[in-house]
């Protein structure tokens, strides 16, 4: 894999899954991996460090958006050209990150989103509903119709990496990134990916109860 590609894994209390996620990514040839430990109280950072990847630790938990912003800053400082964000809860397959990377390399878009929507529609109805509502809201605010606006698997090409600076700290960052890309007239492209949800990963991530908070935060920045 390219020396100019960084995988960012935002992680908060993911000690049970982080080692598998990192090892799978390494097996697929990803060399540069950054774990942004977002104030975890468990062994997430320790495990990641022992697996010989870069680790940045926030002293307190500030949220997914803050962790992604820290990762993007790190990538820009170190001169990376491509970035892929990858969830730490084990819901993504490392091979899908390869698909995202190919799409970036072949210039399908500046921002590549790994869409899990087909998988969600088939099996995970509540998550599908949350995503549909989020997609509608993202569309109303940005004008971009994305099938899985809340996907944590996304790729940033050089233009996106250079110009996207998220301001929000929580889960609303997923919609915000799309809003910024649309405002900057960046090309957003979707690649179908699989979602391997476990009971553990279903407990994490976006929830219906969180939607109002996300909507409020997005309205504040739009």
């Amino acid at each position, binding site marked *: 894999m390219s020396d100019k590609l960084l995988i960012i894994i935002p992680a908060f209390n993911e000690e049970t899954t982080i080692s598998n996620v990192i090892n799978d990514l390494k097996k697929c040839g990803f060399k540069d991996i*950054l774990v942004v430990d977002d*104030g975890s109280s468990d062994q997430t*950072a320790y495990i990641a*460090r022992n697996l*010989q*990847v*870069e*680790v*940045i*630790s*926030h*002293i*307190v938990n*500030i*949220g997914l958006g*803050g962790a992604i*912003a*820290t990762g993007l*800053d*790190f990538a820009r400082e170190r001169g990376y050209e491509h970035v892929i964000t990858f969830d730490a809860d084990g819901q993504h397959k490392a091979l899908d990150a390869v698909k995202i990377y190919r799409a970036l390399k072949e210039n399908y878009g500046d921002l590549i989103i790994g869409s899990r929507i087909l998988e969600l529609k088939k099996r995970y109805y509540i998550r599908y509903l949350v995503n549909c509502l989020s997609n509608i809201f993202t569309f109303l605010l940005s004008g971009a119709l994305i099938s899985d606006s809340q996907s944590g698997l996304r790729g940033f090409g050089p233009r996106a990496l250079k110009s996207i600076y998220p301001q929000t*700290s929580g889960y609303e960052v997923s919609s915000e990134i799309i809003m910024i890309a649309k405002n900057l007239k960046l090309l957003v492209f979707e690649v179908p990916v699989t979602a391997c949800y476990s009971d553990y990963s279903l407990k994490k991530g976006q929830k219906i109860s969180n939607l109002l908070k996300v909507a409020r935060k997005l309205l*504040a920045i739009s």
Partner: protein
Amino acid sequence: MIVFQTVYLVFFVTTLWRLVTKKVFRVWVVTMWILLWTTGAVLVLFPQVSFFLAHIFGIGRGSDLVIYVSIILIIYLLYRIYVKMEKISKRMDLVVRKISRPVSN
């Protein structure tokens, strides 16, 4: 009514005392709170003032006027607190991100 007036006046005096002696608030904040509490004290001690004001605003009873104004004030103060909290939260996020550095393996 005498009981309520006494309780209010005790609160009024102690709050004013704290505001003035603590010296942690800015002058305009202290002035605003003193005005607010003094208005309350006037309305409690002289209820006929609230009847008079209610009449000017076309509201039937003085107590209704007090409730309406209180609700508006509470909503406004909640809004201000919310904005302030958001600002503090954003600053805290920024500080956390700025002081975080890569940890070597």
